[in-house]
């Protein structure tokens, strides 16, 4: 029984460590790899349960990969399992990040490194721009064009022109989001009632 229990931890660490090292492009791109380990390789859960968990995880804030790792670990081995799964998933890349950036900072007076850091900035700007477009697209699919323009304009005004702290803006939008569909339903009913 004890051997079996230790084996579970090793499996969790191995599976989450592997997905952490092989997953390029941030958390969301790693989800198919995590699904492979959890559903196909180790059969911790079936495809439906994985899909359901992922949908719920997406409705909550924070990084997605670590949320999934935590839940898988917790489901198999409780809180210690969750800790093992998260650590295995993030530790290798975090250590590599600290080592690499410390090395680069150590060399930061060299003109070659300064040139490298400068040249990559436009690329990062483009990547952020593409991400902005993707978030706007997600909003567009859910809200439609008219409302996206209005809500983006309101966000812009609040964030940049007023300016209000982003936390407050997000909380305001969350609060409105909670009643958004009900309001929409009411408006539709009213319009329908007047038309008939």
């Amino acid at each position, binding site marked *: 029984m004890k051997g079996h229990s230790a084996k579970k931890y090793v499996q969790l660490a191995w599976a989450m460590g592997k997905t*952490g*090292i*092989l*997953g*390029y492009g*941030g*958390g*969301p791109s*790693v989800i198919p790899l995590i699904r492979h380990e959890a559903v196909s390789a180790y059969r911790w859960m079936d495809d439906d349960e994985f899909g*359901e968990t992922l949908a719920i*995880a997406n409705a*909550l*804030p*924070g*990084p997605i990969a*670590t*949320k999934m790792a*935590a*839940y898988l670990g917790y489901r198999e081995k409780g809180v210690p399992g*969750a800790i093992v799964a*998260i650590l295995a998933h*993030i530790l290798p*890349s*975090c250590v*590599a*990040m600290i080592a690499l*950036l410390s090395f680069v900072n150590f060399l930061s007076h060299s*003109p070659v490194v300064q*040139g*490298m*850091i*400068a*040249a*990559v*900035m*436009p*690329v*990062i*700007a*483009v*990547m952020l721009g*593409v*991400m*902005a477009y993707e978030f*706007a697209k*997600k*909003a567009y699919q*859910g809200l439609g064009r008219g409302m996206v323009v209005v*809500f*983006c304009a309101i*966000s*812009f005004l609040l*964030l*940049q022109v007023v300016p209000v702290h982003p*936390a407050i803006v997000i909380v305001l*939008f*969350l609060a409105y*989001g909670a*009643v*958004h569909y009900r309001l929409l339903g009411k408006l539709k009913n009213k319009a329908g009632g007047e038309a008939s």
Partner: protein
Amino acid sequence: MILQDLIDLFAGFFLSNLLGYGGGPASIPLMYREIVTHYQWTNDTEFSNLLALGNTLPGPIASKIAAFVGFDVAGFGGALVALVATVVPSAVLLIVLLRLMAKYRHSPVVKGMTLLVQPVIAVMMMLLTWQMGRTSIEALGWWQAIPIAAIALWAMEKRKIHPALVILCAFVYGGLVVPHI
């Protein structure tokens, strides 16, 4: 002094990840606001470099940024605090709320909340793009920054070349060409 740093690190990363709906990338503009604008742990150029190197390494982006900034501000203790603030609250939320959320997942309240955050994140991301674009023009001049951006956009979006590869190409160009201009 060091305790204040640790408290700041915790507060900064806790807030930016608790408000980021849509995975790690959604938290980037929020982390930028805490790291660069509010606490001034790094400047624009360093933050861009953080994202560049973070994207050439595997693993979740939010935890990599937290680990490095925490380490830079307060050593290994700082890295630990920033990481805990980044991953623990959302992990606990998922574990605790899973049953409850499973019941209400299809409720229009939960759906509406997740949806309505997207325009705010999109606008914050756009403002950050603008900021980074301006800083790179200051660093390189129009004539270098705009072509690099155009080529990067073409390579990533049209040719579907992996971002890590595009970043490496920019590093090579920057190392070989930029110092000699």
